[in-house]
């Protein structure tokens, strides 16, 4: 860790994060930090446990062992319990004594938003509604006030902000379109816009460029840079398109079999023997 990093605020930190399903260890003692304003990539071969790591961070899974901190506060902590105690294959089984489990929506309220590997839009709803819904998490009106439409100002603000976001991602002209009818690349953009509507500080992107052609990927790269600056985001992403990863990441974590095998700048990673072996296989 260099000095420059030490002075910056840590947004996300995982400590010995381990996720084990039955006998299979998907994430193995992952200790990683993301600093404010960074774009950090998490890469690794297929099945390395990247998406699982994201799912633990966002509260979809409860970790088997380890801890996750967000802005210094613990959002998940656990140690192997019950049946897992015997099955557990990792170390430090007793280092984390608390059991803290936040639900995904609670974590979202702590300003973390995400996109999904296999696009999870609200398919039957319009583009506009998709974004509007994401504002719900910051809604102040209770159900009665909302049901009697007494929060007109709030609704209006939400609608305006949604249109604004759509304008930023360049989908405003398609606001009334059913989201499922959008082309693939636009669906990805919409998913990002929807995540932004929750007003996050940390944005997790799970393979944002999957299925995109090189040109679209380049556009996406610019786009991610833009929104990062505009919304003062910290970005943590999983990606396979190396052009994209190498092009915009500040730092890269590489994992294989759930374990971290390398961390560093893009240049460092591209010449790292372990990474090349992980991707291309061990050359004998």
């Amino acid at each position: 860790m260099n000095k420059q990093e030490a002075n910056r605020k840590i947004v996300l930190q995982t400590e010995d994060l381990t996720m084990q399903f039955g006998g299979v260890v998907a994430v193995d003692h992952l200790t990683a930090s993301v600093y404010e304003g960074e774009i950090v990539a998490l890469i690794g071969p297929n099945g390395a446990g990247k998406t699982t790591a994201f799912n633990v961070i966002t509260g979809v899974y409860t970790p088997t062992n380890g801890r996750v901190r967000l802005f210094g506060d613990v959002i998940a902590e656990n140690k192997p319990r019950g049946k897992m105690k015997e099955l557990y294959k990792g170390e430090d089984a007793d280092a984390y004594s608390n059991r803290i489990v936040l639900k995904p929506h609670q974590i979202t309220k702590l300003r973390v938003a995400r996109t999904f590997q296999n696009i999870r839009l609200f398919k039957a709803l319009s583009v506009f509604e998709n974004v509007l819904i994401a504002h719900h998490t910051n809604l102040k009106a209770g159900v009665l006030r909302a049901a009697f439409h007494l929060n007109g100002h709030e609704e209006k603000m939400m609608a305006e902000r949604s249109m604004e976001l759509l304008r930023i991602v360049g989908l405003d002209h398609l606001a009334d379109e059913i989201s499922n009818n959008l082309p693939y690349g636009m669906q990805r953009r919409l998913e990002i816009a929807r995540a932004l509507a929750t007003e996050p500080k940390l944005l997790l992107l799970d393979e944002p460029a999957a299925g995109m052609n090189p040109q679209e990927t380049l556009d996406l790269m610019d786009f991610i840079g833009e929104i990062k600056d505009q919304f003062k985001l910290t970005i943590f992403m999983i990606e396979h398109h190396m052009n994209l990863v190498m092009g915009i990441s500040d730092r890269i974590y590489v994992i294989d079999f759930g374990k971290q095998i390398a961390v560093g700048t893009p240049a460092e990673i591209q010449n790292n023997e372990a990474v090349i072996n992980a991707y291309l296989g061990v050359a004998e």
Partner: protein
Amino acid sequence: MKKDFSKATRLILSLMAMVGIFFLLFWLEGQKSQYGMLISVMQKGVILSIAAVSMNLLTGFTGLFSLGQAGFMAIGAYVTGILTIPVDRVDSVYYVNGMSEGLKSFKETLAVLPSPVLVALALIAGGLVAAIFAGLVGIPVLRLKSDYLAIATLGFAEIIRAVIASPQLDKITNGSYGIKAIPGFDLGNGRGMLLIPFGVAFLCIGLIVLLIKSSYGRAFKAIREDDIAAEAMGIGLFKHKQLSFIISSFFTAISGGLLAMFMRSIESRAFQIILTYDILLIVVIGGIGSITGSVVGAFLVTFAKEWWLRFFDTPLTINGVQIPLLRQGFRMVVFSVLLMAIVLFYRKGLLGNTEFSWYGFLTWPSRFFKRKKPVSATPGEGGAGDE
């Protein structure tokens, strides 16, 4: 962009329609002797439409497949019934075991209220009791997935029925003897038999529509579309499912209360699974996810079942030839075959998940005839458009 009239035009059209319906109802009420059947079927239709819309709020908008409708209707019906029986009829209704003293004196206190107020309070009380039950039941049940949820809520409805009919509660619910002498829809001057149920339905459905159009309604839809994404967008699954379940139960119970007033006498057996199935049928026929569909479906199903299709049940002889198949029970067979046909071949129901719009309604005839031409000109287009 979807084509539609301006907001003002829509408002005027809606107001005109409402005034028109009001006068139609008012006029019909006056012709009771001549249109008795029509009135009675309309009453039942509008009452079921509330239950159907409430079910749709759960099933169509929140994606929760619950089969507990009959149970919540029973709660509403019983609470409304017990509170509205005239005090002087109580002894004759509870002739076997008598009514509990506490309840009776409570009723005597309530008796000072004018009857429309009492009825309104009773309906709301029924809704609230059901909502409380829904809140409690929701805690364990709403964690379950699709068919488990369905069967658990169905089971819950059966439990409600058993509790209502149980001898232990016979001083409150009159056990399994049911309750009679429930006042009907009456504003005091022989009026109200249509205006009251339609008025209540208008309020209830209106509220549900407003809810659906609010931010909470959108959150429900998000859960329906993709619960994982909804949660990731900060929508608490349990809280919102619970909310939807409670609200739906509230209105279902109001529908049950109205049903009690319509039937004038109720018993727990009236609230069997079959009632839930009937409401489900309405929702499916109308289109899961369409409020107007549920309303239209409620009237269509009730009219067809109670009236138009009755002739299927009576043997018919024309020119000395007995028409085959027509006899007792055939109506329901035709009905269930229709349901299956809709489920299998026409899964979206009448309105799919779209809503009634004046534009669509008024331009429908012209579109209907226009559409034929392009279809015949480019045969491929029709098929692609349907997907």
